[in-house]
C-alpha cells in the first residue's frame, strides 16, 4: 500500500493535544450521571419491558427513571433504590421493573436497607449484566467463525460493501437486506426513522411505520439480526448489521445493540451536539457510557465526521474532520475501546468541479488511512453535490469507489445513484453493489503498485491539512472544548454548554451515587 510521508511528530503532537483536550471533559463525565445512563443500567440488568401509555408503548425504564427524577434523586443513580427494592421484595430486576412500571411498587416508599448489602448485590447484578454482553459477543463470534468472516480493521482485504435499507417497515427492510446481501453487500445499516435521536426513549417492539427509516427497537434489531444470521449461513459470508447509537438514547442503544449482537454502531462523541442540538454535557457524558458498553461488546463504531463535509465546504474543512477524528479516538480510548473498534469516519464530498478534485480526495482518504493505521476507516459517499441526474451520480460513486479501494479504506458506504431523491430502491442498491464490486476487484492491488510523488500535490495537500489540524486543535485546547464548540470550531455550528435538548436529564453525582458498571465495564 502506498503511503504518504507525513511528519509523525506532528501526528503524535495532535494525539497529545486531543488527550489534553479530553481531560476536563473526563472529569465532568465521572462526576455526573444522566437519565439515559440510568436507563441503560436498568436495561443491562434485564428491565426491557414496556407499558401502554396513551396508545403507545413506553419503556419501563423510562417510567422508573422519570420517577427517580421526579423524586429529585437522579444524583444518587437508580441502583440504590432499585436494588434495595429487589432485596426487600425478593424480585428479579425484570419482575421489579414491571411491578414499578405498573405502579405496584413504589421504589421510594421502601425503607433503605444496609448500604453494604445493596452495594454487594448491585455489583453482582452488574457483573451478570456484563456477562450477558459477553455471552452475546461469544455467540456472534461463533457465527462469524462459521461463516469465515474475513473482516480486517486495517482494510487489507479491500473495502467492505456497506449499504443502507430504509423502508420504515422492519419486515420490508428484511426483504431488502437479504436481497442486498445476495447481491454482494457485506453490511446492512437500517436507517432510523428521522428524528429518533431526539426521542428520550427507545420505542418498543417490531415497527412497521417510520419516516425516512425504521425505528431502532430491540425487537427490530433482533428480527434483522436473525434474518442476517440466516442469510450469512446460506451465503457462507458473514453479513454485518449496523444501527445508530446517537442522540438522547445512545447509552440504551449501545446496551440493546450489545445484547442483540449488532456489529456496527454509528457513535460519535460530538455529533449529537453539533447536528442534533443535543446538550453538550449530556452528549459527552452519554457517549462515554455508551462506549464502555461498546468496548465490552466489541462492536465497531463509526464516527460522524462525514457530516462536517456536508454542512461545511469539503475542500476547506478537511482539518476539522481530522481534528475531530483525533478527539473521537481519544474519547474512545478513554472508554477502554481499542483502535481496531474505531471506524473513524470521513467522506468524499468535495465539489466535483474543483480542479484536480481527485488529488485532494485521494490525499484526504490516504491520510486518514495512514494516520489511523489500525482503525477500520469508514468512508462515506458523495451526497452533497448529487442531484437527480442518476447517471452522473452513479459515476461519482464509481470514482468514490476507486478512491476507496486505492487508499485502503475499510468500510465503504456505497453511494446511491438516487441519493437526494428517495430511499434506495432495490435496483438502486443492486447497481451500487455492482459498481463497487467491479472497481474493488479491478483495482484491488493498485495501491500496492504506486507510490505518491514526494512533495507532489497529494502529499502537499495532506501536509497542509495536517498543519491546519494542529492549528485547530491548539485553538480548541487553549479555549477548552466547550467554548471552542460555542465558537464554531466544528462544522460552522455554535452550541452552548447549557443549551440544546436533554440538559434537564443531567445531574451531578451525589456522594450516594452507585453504579458498579463504571468499574466493571
Amino acid at each position, binding site marked *: 500500500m502506498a503511503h504518504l510521508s507525513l511528519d509523525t511528530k506532528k501526528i503524535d503532537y495532535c494525539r497529545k493535544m486531543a488527550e489534553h483536550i479530553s481531560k476536563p471533559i473526563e472529569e465532568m463525565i465521572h462526576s455526573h450521571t444522566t437519565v439515559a445512563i440510568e436507563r441503560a443500567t436498568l436495561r443491562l440488568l434485564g428491565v426491557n419491558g414496556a407499558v401502554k401509555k396513551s396508545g403507545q408503548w413506553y419503556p419501563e425504564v423510562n417510567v422508573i427513571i422519570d420517577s427517580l427524577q421526579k423524586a429529585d434523586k437522579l444524583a444518587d443513580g437508580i441502583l440504590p433504590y432499585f436494588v434495595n427494592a429487589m432485596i426487600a421484595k425478593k424480585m428479579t430486576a425484570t419482575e421489579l421493573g414491571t411491578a414499578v412500571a405498573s405502579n405496584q411498587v413504589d421504589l421510594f416508599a421502601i425503607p433503605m436497607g444496609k448500604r453494604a448489602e445493596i452495594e454487594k448485590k448491585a455489583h453482582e447484578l452488574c457483573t451478570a449484566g456484563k456477562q450477558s454482553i459477553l455471552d452475546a459477543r461469544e455467540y456472534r463470534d461463533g457465527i462469524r467463525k462459521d461463516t469465515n468472516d474475513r473482516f480486517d480493521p486495517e482494510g487489507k482485504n479491500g473495502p467492505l460493501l456497506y449499504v443502507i435499507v430504509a423502508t420504515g417497515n422492519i419486515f420490508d427492510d428484511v426483504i431488502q437486506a437479504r436481497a442486498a446481501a*445476495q447481491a454482494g453487500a457485506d453490511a446492512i445499516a437500517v436507517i432510523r426513522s428521522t*428524528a429518533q435521536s431526539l426521542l428520550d426513549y427507545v420505542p418498543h417492539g417490531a415497527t412497521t411505520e417510520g419516516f425516512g427509516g425504521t425505528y431502532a427497537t430491540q425487537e427490530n434489531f433482533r428480527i434483522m439480526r436473525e434474518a442476517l444470521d440466516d442469510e450469512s449461513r446460506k451465503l457462507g459470508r458473514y453479513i454485518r448489521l449496523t444501527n445508530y447509537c446517537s442522540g438522547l438514547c445512545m447509552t440504551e442503544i449501545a446496551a440493546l445493540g450489545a445484547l442483540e449482537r449488532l456489529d456496527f454502531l454509528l457513535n460519535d462523541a460530538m455529533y449529537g451536539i453539533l447536528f*442534533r442540538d443535543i446538550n453538550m454535557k449530556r452528549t459527552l457524558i452519554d457517549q462515554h457510557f455508551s462506549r464502555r458498553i461498546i468496548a465490552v461488546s466489541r462492536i465497531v463504531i463509526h464516527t460522524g465526521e462525514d457530516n462536517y463535509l456536508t*454542512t461545511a465546504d469539503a475542500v476547506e474543512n478537511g482539518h476539522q474532520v481530522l481534528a475531530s477524528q483525533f478527539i473521537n479516538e481519544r474519547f474512545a480510548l478513554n472508554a477502554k475501546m481499542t483502535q481496531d473498534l474505531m471506524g473513524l469516519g470521513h467522506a468524499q464530498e468535495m465539489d466535483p468541479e474543483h480542479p484536480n478534485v481527485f488529488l485532494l480526495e485521494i490525499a484526504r482518504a490516504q491520510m486518514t488511512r495512514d494516520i489511523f493505521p489500525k482503525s477500520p476507516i469508514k468512508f462515506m459517499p458523495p451526497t452533497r453535490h448529487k442531484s437527480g441526474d442518476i447517471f452522473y451520480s452513479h459515476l461519482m460513486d464509481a470514482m468514490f469507489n476507486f478512491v476507496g479501494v486505492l487508499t485502503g479504506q475499510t468500510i465503504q458506504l456505497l453511494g446511491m445513484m438516487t441519493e437526494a431523491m428517495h430511499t434506495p430502491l*432495490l435496483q438502486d442498491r443492486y447497481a451500487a453493489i455492482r459498481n463497487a464490486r467491479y472497481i474493488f476487484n479491478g483495482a484491488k492491488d493498485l495501491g500496492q503498485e504506486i507510490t505518491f510523488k514526494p512533495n507532489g500535490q497529494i502529499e502537499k495537500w495532506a501536509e497542509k491539512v495536517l498543519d491546519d489540524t494542529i492549528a485547530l486543535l491548539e485553538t480548541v485546547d487553549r479555549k477548552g472544548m466547550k467554548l471552542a464548540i460555542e465558537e464554531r470550531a466544528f462544522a460552522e455550528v455554535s452550541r452552548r454548554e447549557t443549551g440544546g435538548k436533554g440538559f434537564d436529564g443531567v445531574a451531578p453525582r451525589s456522594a450516594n451515587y452507585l453504579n458498579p458498571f463504571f468499574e466493571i465495564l
Partner: protein
Amino acid sequence: MSNDSSQAKTVDLKRLKPYGDIMGDGTIQICFTLPVEPSPEAREAAIMLCEKMGLESIKLATMEKAGEGFSMFVIYGNMKQTVDFTEIHVVKVESTKRGRDEIDEIIKTHIGRKLVVLGACTGYDAHTVGIDAIMNMKGYAGDYGLERYQWLDARNLGAQVLNEELLKLAIREKADVILVSKVVTQHNIHVRDLKDLIKRAKQLGLDKKIIFVAGGPRVTHPLALECGFDAGFGVGTKPSDVASYIIDEFLNRREEFEGIPNPLKANATDDTALIEKPVPTPKPASSPKKSISAKKTPSRASQSPTKKGQSAKKAKPAAKKAKKKAKKK
C-alpha cells in the same frame, strides 16, 4: 450532400414526444424491478408491462438477477403518445433575478429597514443542507447566503423546529419572511407539515403579513402554492434567487395592501404589451431550464402579489393566466 428527404425533421410542438436520435421517434428508457426470479416468463412479463404503458418496438436491454426472487430490467421502447407543448402553462415563481448588491441597495433605498427572514427545517426534518445553503453566510455554488446580505436580518433556526415555535418566534421577531426547507418526503410528511404551518399562520392572522417560502428537493412552486405558501423553490436554487423573489413580493404586497407603488415596476408601462403566450419559444437543442430565470419576458408588470387562492388583478390577463393552477394539458 443532403437532399430534401434526408433533411432532419424539426420538432412538432403540437405533437411533442421523446427524442432519441430521430425526431419523433419517441424513444424512452425504463428501469424497474419485478419481484420474480429472472426467467423467460419474467422477461415476457416485463415486455407486457411496457406494452401496457403504450410502448412500441420494445427492446429489452438487460434482465439482471438483483437478489433472490428479484429481476431488474432495462428496457427501451417508443412512445406513441404526444403532448401539445403550446398548450402547457406552468406556474412559476415570478421575479426578476438580481444580485446581492442590487438587492441590498433596493431594500436600503425603498424599504429603509432590514427585512427579517427566518429559515428552518420544520417538523422532524433534520436535513439542513437546503436551508443552510440558502441562509448561511457561505451560501451555495458561489452565491452568498442570506446572512451575508446587509439589509436582510436572516436567521437560520436549523433543524427540527416545530411549526408553532416557528410562528411564535416570527411574531416576536416581526418576521417578514419565513423560509421552510423540507427534505424528508416519506408518507408525504413534507406536505402535511407545510400545510400545517399555513393553517396555524392563518389562525394567527399571519398569512398575509409574512411571505411564506418553501424549499427542498421535492418541492415545486405549484406544490408550495397548493400548501398555501407564496412560493416554492427546488434543487439548484441559489440564495439570490430567493432574495430576488423576496423583495419583489414584499414590494408588490406593500403596493397591494398599503398603496405604496412598487418602485421596481415604475418603468413598466403597458400591460397589454406582454406576450400572451406564457411559454417561451424553446430553442431546439437546449432544454428550457426550470430555474426562475427561465422566464424570458421582462414582464415585471405582471408580478401581481397573488395570494393563495386569490385571483390576480383583472387588468393583467397574462399575470392571471400564469398564476392559475399548474395546468399540464
